[in-house]
């Protein structure tokens, strides 16, 4: 049964009951009044009839005749009793069986002038309508006719019952018809509801069998076409989603394949340094399983230095950080950490983690070591013969000058010319020997610098002391050229922490360069304190450097002037070494120059952070770009 019907049925039943009972009561009431009237008039008619016909009999006191008469009237329906009293109130005859009820005594003495109706209640017998009619205006007596009121009530009851029964039957019949009607309406509605339910479950293929052309049929058709549309839309989206998933899976598989097949080890951490991803190459490098890494703090596996670069890269998006790390089987790896930052995240915010690439550099290290060994061996092997060449040349020169030349007493021009030539040639051999020595020293230095094989001492250095020592070391050069050196050194320079010998090396280099390229004028050495660094400058009044040359003077084997036409007088490595040393300490070195007027070389050494120059190197992106170029 439909819910709609159930809901309305209760209301209908209540309404029906109210209506049915109202009708029954009003009908009963009307019937009661009608019957009461009928009984009264019937009783009155009987009473009057008896009264008129019994005058004589009463006067004759013929009780039996009266008795017979009243007995006859008793048969009329509704008549319950009849009794006749004489003028004195004595009952002459009556129909009470077996005895006269006591209540009669109350009414037997009533003496109305005309017919009079009243109700009387007999105990144990019920309510009666008593009609009193005087006989001969009361002279001969009175006739009392009692009509049974309970009869009326019984009749009303049965009439009402019948009516209720009839109404109920009609009602039930109507309900059944209504139910059938409602069912007929709600069945397709239910079918539509089921259909809609299936639609919500994306079952678009189920049929709905409603073919009526009323509103429900219309609704069904609309729903059907809606379902078709929905089906299409869902199909399209499903296809699109499937395509997207496939594409995503492909991309993911591609990326995973790329990462998994990388020769370098890859490791990803979150912002707390907890490892979230590693590739097989990395697992292999450390001879561990992937599960040994995931979820662990990188500090616990790779140590403090590694954790430090991870931490730094997470907080610093601009730079990448590198360190060396020990791999399994005594191999050495180089770890490069980069912070992972979303484009939307502001630079001062923490990123989402760090990605670390680890490359096995054992063989590179080995090659490097071999290179360094090779260089020192070569330099050793070169030095020994060079020592002999230089030494013997000097001895030859000495012997020639001391013993031979003074004893040549000839005027032969050829001999004298040869003596001059020999002297000249020996000097060339000696100076070239010097140059070769310097070159070997510089090559050794630069290869050590580039291989990072210098043991940088860290000591407190007074810059003024370092400058003074460099000046002493180069004083011979100044004397040779008779050039004055002007000193302008701030006496209150703070101490710096660095390798004194290296700083002296830089200053000697710059001073000897200044002398080398200056023929007249002077060389000036200045030192002053800047905000957080020390600035040293060495100016000369020499040949100067052209704009185009200026950019290249710090490169290896570069010297001012054309090396093809000008006689080279240095190794071409000095400034390159200077730059490497100064940059090692985080300082900068540069030159300002005007061709023909002289040059000024500047370098700075930062006061702070020199301690920070540790094995964790900071590389900016710019530097990396340079390296790859």
């Amino acid at each position, binding site marked *: 049964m439909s819910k709609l019907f159930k809901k309305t049925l209760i209301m209908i039943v209540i309404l029906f009951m109210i209506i049915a009972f109202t009708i029954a009561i009003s009908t009963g009431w009307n019937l009661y009044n009608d019957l009461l009237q009928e009984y009264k008039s019937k009783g009155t008619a009987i009473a009057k009839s008896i009264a008129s016909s019994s005058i004589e009999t009463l006067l004759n006191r013929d009780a039996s005749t009266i008795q017979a008469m009243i007995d006859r009237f008793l048969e009329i329906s509704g008549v319950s009793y009849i009794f006749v009293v004489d003028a004195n109130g004595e009952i002459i005859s009556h129909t009470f069986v077996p005895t006269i009820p006591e209540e009669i005594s109350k009414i037997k003495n009533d003496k109305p002038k005309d017919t009079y109706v009243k109700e009387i209640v007999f105990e144990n017998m019920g309510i009666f309508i008593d009609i009193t009619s005087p006989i001969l205006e009361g002279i001969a007596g009175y006739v009392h006719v009692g009509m049974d009121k309970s009869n009326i009530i019984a009749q009303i009851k049965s009439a009402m019952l019948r009516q209720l029964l009839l109404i109920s039957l009609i009602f039930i019949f109507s309900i059944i018809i209504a139910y059938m009607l409602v069912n007929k309406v709600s069945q397709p509605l239910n079918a539509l509801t089921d259909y809609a339910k299936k639609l919500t479950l994306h079952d678009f293929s189920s049929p709905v069998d409603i073919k009526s052309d009323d509103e429900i049929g219309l609704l069904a058709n609309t729903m059907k076409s809606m379902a078709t549309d929905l089906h299409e839309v869902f199909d399209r989206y499903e296809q699109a989603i499937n395509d997207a998933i496939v594409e995503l899976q492909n991309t993911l598989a591609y990326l995973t394949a790329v990462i998994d097949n990388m020769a370098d080890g890859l490791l990803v951490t979150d912002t707390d340094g907890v490892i979230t991803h590693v590739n097989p190459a990395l697992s292999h490098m450390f001879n561990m399983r992937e599960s040994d890494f995931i979820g662990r703090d990188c500090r616990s596996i790779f140590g403090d230095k590694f954790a430090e670069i991870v931490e730094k890269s997470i907080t610093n998006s601009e730079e990448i950080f590198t360190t060396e790390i020990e791999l399994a089987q005594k191999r050495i790896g180089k770890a490069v950490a980069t912070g992972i930052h979303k484009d939307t995240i502001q630079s001062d915010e923490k990123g989402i983690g760090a990605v670390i690439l680890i490359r096995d550099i054992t063989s590179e290290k080995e090659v490097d070591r071999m290179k360094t060994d090779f260089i020192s061996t070569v330099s050793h092997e070169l030095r020994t013969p060079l020592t002999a060449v230089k*030494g013997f040349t000097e001895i030859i020169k000495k012997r020639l000058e001391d013993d031979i030349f003074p004893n040549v007493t000839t005027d032969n021009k050829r001999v004298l010319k040869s003596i001059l030539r020999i002297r000249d040639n020996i000097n060339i051999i000696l100076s070239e020997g010097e140059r070769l020595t310097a070159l070997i020293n510089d090559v050794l230095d630069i290869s050590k610098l580039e291989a990072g094989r210098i043991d940088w001492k860290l000591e407190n250095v007074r810059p003024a002391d370092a400058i003074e020592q460099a000046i002493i070391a180069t004083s011979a050069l100044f004397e040779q050229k008779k050039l004055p050196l002007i000193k302008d050194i701030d006496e209150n320079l703070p101490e710096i922490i660095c390798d004194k010998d290296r700083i002296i090396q830089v200053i000697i280099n710059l001073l000897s360069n200044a002398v080398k390229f200056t023929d007249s004028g002077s060389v000036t050495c200045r030192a002053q304190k800047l905000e957080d660094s020390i600035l040293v400058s060495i100016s000369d009044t020499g040949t100067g450097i052209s704009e185009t040359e200026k950019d290249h003077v710090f490169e290896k084997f570069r010297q001012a002037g054309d090396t093809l036409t000008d006689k080279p007088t240095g190794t071409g490595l000095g400034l390159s070494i200077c730059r490497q040393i100064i940059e090692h300490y985080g300082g900068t070195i540069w030159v300002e120059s005007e061709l023909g007027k002289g040059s000024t070389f500047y370098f700075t050494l930062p006061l702070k952070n020199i301690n920070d120059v540790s094995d964790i190197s900071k590389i900016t992106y710019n530097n990396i770009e340079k390296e790859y170029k």
Partner: protein
Amino acid sequence: MKKILIVDDDPIIRNLLEQILEPFAEKDIEILIAENGLVALDIIKEKQPELIFLDVMMPKMNGFEVCQKIKNNPTDKIPYIIMLTAKGQETDKEKAKASGADCYITKPFNINDLLNKVSEILQVNLN
């Protein structure tokens, strides 16, 4: 008579040093030669030179070891030792100092510097 000992495995360098030190030989200073550390130790024991030129890179026993042996030897005379090396590395300088060498000269060396140094040590005026 003062003595100078030259210890080097390379005969050319030995020859060179011998010739460089000729002015001292002329001043009655004996020049002794050893081609390796073991020979050098024997000569030192026997002749007790005042000054030793000691090469670092030598077979059998390197200069540092020889130097240590000499300095640890409780003979009455402890000689002045000049280490000669082709290596200009910082570590070599440190090692030389640690093994007890008095002076460290890198090859190739300047003859005049060398002569000045020797005359200073031996208190001999060449002029």
